């Protein structure tokens, strides 16, 4: 069964460093998302991506964040200068298209900023 894969599963980084979280969405899906979940809190929307551009972003997704689909298969989330409060589980999701509401999630990347 097709699945969304995320790497790495756990990333530890020093405050101020750049990190890139990688995702491989399901191959024929058209809509891509990043969400995060700070420990014990709700799943928060970060950004949605369609047709090689950002469709919508939340207030969390400030200038420190960027997304890219560099090669038609990977979908990456970059945090330029990490802060302690960026520590969270980051989930990538993909969705086939309009009329298909179900989004499939990856297993997540646990980012720990020290």
């Amino acid at each position, binding site marked *: 069964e097709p699945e*969304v894969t995320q790497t790495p599963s756990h990333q530890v980084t020093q405050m101020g460093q750049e990190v890139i979280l990688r995702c491989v969405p399901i191959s024929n899906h058209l809509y891509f998302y990043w969400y995060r979940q700070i420990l014990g809190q*709700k799943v928060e*929307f970060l950004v949605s991506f369609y047709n090689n551009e950002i469709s919508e972003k939340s207030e969390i997704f400030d200038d420190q964040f960027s997304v890219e689909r560099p090669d038609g298969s990977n979908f990456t989330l970059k945090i330029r200068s990490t802060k302690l409060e960026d520590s969270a589980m980051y989930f990538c999701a993909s969705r086939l298209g309009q009329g298909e509401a*179900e989004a499939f999630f990856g297993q997540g990347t646990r980012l720990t900023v020290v």
Partner: protein
Amino acid sequence: DQQVKQNSPSLSVQEGRISILNCDYTNSMFDYFLWYKKYPAEGPTFLISISSIKDKNEDGRFTVFLNKSAKHLSLHIVPSQPGDSAVYFCAAVEGVVDMRFGAGTRLTVKP
């Protein structure tokens, strides 16, 4: 962003009984509503969805009810099993892209 709300952070039920998980929303433009189940250290897994034009969708032990006038949906699990213990997220989709999640409800099913 409080467009989707799950006001009960936790719910505990006995095995074999009914679990009812509730969700409220404020945006009348949502097209679909979904329930996801999440185990620790895993990504959310899709459970069941309902279109805004329906009021009920059933899949095995899981039934979702939608009350558009009250902007309320609920997930019923009958009978509840210990393996159902997880965090359940309500989500809503508007238009092409937008998907928003509630805060989640932790369900514990006791043997």
